[in-house]
């Protein structure tokens, strides 16, 4: 169990800066995801925490002690790799036993033939066997102990990789996109298993993924990384409802959040596509982007904005209507809860959204605070103009 602190971490490969100053404190026992698009540096950050890469500058502290120069195996962390990284020539049992053997047996005791003759070895082996079998039970892979990785399915290999991590009883678990190689159904199943594992073990989990749905469903907190910077850290709800940066708003949520070009008027009101939005802001006048989630876009006959239906996506349980609007490069996406009542393709349609549904970002992408006018006033305005 460990609290991990990352201070002002920078990493550059040759001239390319991959991590541009990351500060993060990971609480003891929490499940935190590092999310971001490919190439944002999240895997590099994980490897630096593990000790597999040195940082260019900055510090990593585990339980208040700096781990600079401490070897990976001495940091007492365990990592589950995207490719599982199981030793192909060893059985499942031996794979899981490797970290234990490395730690508890000396080099001489590990020597192929000679080592087996040494006295203490048998006792240690028995303890190792007990530990491995316990972990195998926990993960329900006891029947696979004699097999080799090449004979296992993707999901089984994953569990062996997790088993190898668990058996070390580490201070924290590092997951590097462990579910990317699995098919969708298996992925959903393993997500639940890993979340369950966290509840059982109560150890710190640091989980790297590019799949924001994974991060949203599994973590206690999410850290969003884009282009080497930590943009925002918070609970899934906070990240979703209260993004501090337009990049966070656009990265999290499927389908992508709608971004309208907008203006902040000198009277403090917002204007979108020529229509006033009844949300006020104290920011200076200027260009801005007004973002609304698809599920907050309301289709109604009296909506302030209008367009044509250019595309329909019917998923059965819900549907998405893509609306082409003048002034918008990309279609506006609106969610419809009842797919039985879909507008027709090509039909003219009007839509709008409540003032408290908007998330406004300035020209630089930073969030601008807004406060919504009371709804009654808005309805009156809508009827008029």
């Amino acid at each position: 169990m460990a609290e991990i602190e990352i201070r002002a971490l920078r990493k550059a490969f040759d001239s390319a800066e991959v991590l541009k100053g990351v500060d993060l404190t990971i609480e003891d026992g929490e499940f935190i995801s590092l999310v971001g698009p490919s190439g944002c540096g999240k895997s590099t950050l994980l490897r630096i925490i593990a000790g597999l890469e040195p940082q260019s500058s900055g510090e990593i502290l585990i339980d208040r002690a700096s781990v600079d120069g401490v070897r990976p195996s001495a940091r007492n962390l365990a990592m589950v790799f995207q490719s599982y990284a199981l030793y192909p020539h060893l059985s499942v049992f031996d794979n899981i036993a490797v970290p234990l053997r490395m730690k508890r047996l000396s080099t001489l005791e590990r020597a192929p033939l000679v080592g087996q003759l040494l006295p203490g070895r048998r006792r240690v082996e028995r303890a190792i066997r007990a530990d491995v079998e316990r972990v195998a039970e926990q993960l329900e892979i006891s029947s696979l102990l004699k097999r080799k990785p090449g004979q296992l399915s993707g999901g089984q290999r994953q569990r062996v990789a997790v088993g190898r991590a668990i058996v070390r009883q580490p201070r924290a678990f590092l997951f590097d996109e462990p579910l990317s190689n699995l098919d969708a159904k298996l992925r959903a199943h393993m997500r639940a298993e890993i979340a369950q594992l966290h509840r059982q073990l109560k150890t710190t989990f640091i989980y790297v993924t590019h799949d924001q749905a994974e991060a949203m469903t599994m973590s206690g907190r999410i850290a969003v990384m884009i282009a080497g910077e930590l943009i925002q850290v918070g609970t899934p709800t906070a990240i979703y409802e209260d993004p501090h940066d337009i990049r966070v708003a656009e990265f999290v949520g499927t389908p992508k959040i709608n971004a309208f070009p907008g203006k902040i008027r000198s009277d403090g009101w917002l204007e979108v596509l020529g229509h006033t939005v009844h949300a006020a802001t104290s920011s200076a006048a200027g260009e801005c982007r007004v973002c609304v989630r698809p599920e907050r876009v309301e289709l109604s006959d009296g909506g302030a904005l209008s367009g044509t239906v250019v595309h329909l996506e019917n998923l059965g349980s819900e549907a998405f209507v893509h609306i082409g609007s003048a002034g918008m490069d990309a279609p506006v996406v609106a969610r419809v809860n009842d797919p039985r009542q879909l507008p027709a393709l090509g039909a003219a349609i009007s839509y709008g959204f409540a003032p408290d549904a908007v998330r406004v970002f300035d020209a630089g992408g930073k969030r601008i605070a807004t406060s919504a006018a009371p709804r009654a006033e808005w309805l009156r305005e809508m009827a008029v103009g």
Partner: protein
Amino acid sequence: MAEAATALDGVAVAPGAKARAFSGLRQAGGSRAAYALTAPAIVLMLLMLIGPLAGVIALSFTDYQLGAPSFAWIGLSNYREMFADRVFWISLKNTLTYVAVVVPGAVALGLGIALLIQSGTGLRGLYRTVYFLPVMATLIAMAIVWEFMLHPQFGLVNGLLRAAGLQSHSWLQDRATALYALCVIGIWQALGFNMVLFLAGLVSIPKHLYDAAELDGAESAWSRFRLVTWPMLGPVTLFVVVISAIRSFQVFDTVQVLTKGGPSKSSEVLIYTMYAEGFEFFRSGYAAALTVVFLAFLLSLTLLKSVLGKREVHYA
């Protein structure tokens, strides 16, 4: 309307007919073409490879000599003569010694150099080129250079030894050392080839395995080698050993040019004996018997490789 239907019909039929004509091409015309295309290869194969292979085995049971008007079938006499011939056994022993020295040497050094090159990033291309150069350079020419280097009076090797205060030696002229001098040349020449094969093997080991090993506690280079590198190199190592052994068995050039099997047969090797019997004394039947023995060794090596090879491959 009816016209449209028939027009559509016509369209529907044509592709089908074309498809059928096609598959016909693949079968009837295709077969004829195939036989024509493979005929030269098959004929040459029979004439130059399979025929001679059968021929050499058959010859070993005759007493044929080049230029003789006729020959007789003498059954196993050639083999009996061979097994009773002191020179044959010396030749075989020398060949096996050569293989036993050159294979471990060239394989271990090839592996060592490959590991060294891979353990860092600087000058990899340069080292690869330099170590591979002896493989390329005509062996006969380089063997003659080595001969001069080993010259009792004016050679480089003896000169360096004398400068270091050690005894100089007539390496190629002394029966105790001639074969081993040839072994050194053999290792020198084969090392680069093995190195390249090992490099290819090392490069294909997934990097994540080393990360996992690092995290699991494999701290020293030796434990990483034992846990990851050596097991993953299994198939490549087997391949390199067998190929090296096969090539070592075929040693001839250096013997024929530098020692002619001497002094006193101390560097006589199997192919040299076969060459001498077959192309200097023209005792084709006897030489054929020697060839058969040679073939038996080589075939068993290849068989060993197939048998062991299936066991060694690990799927990651």
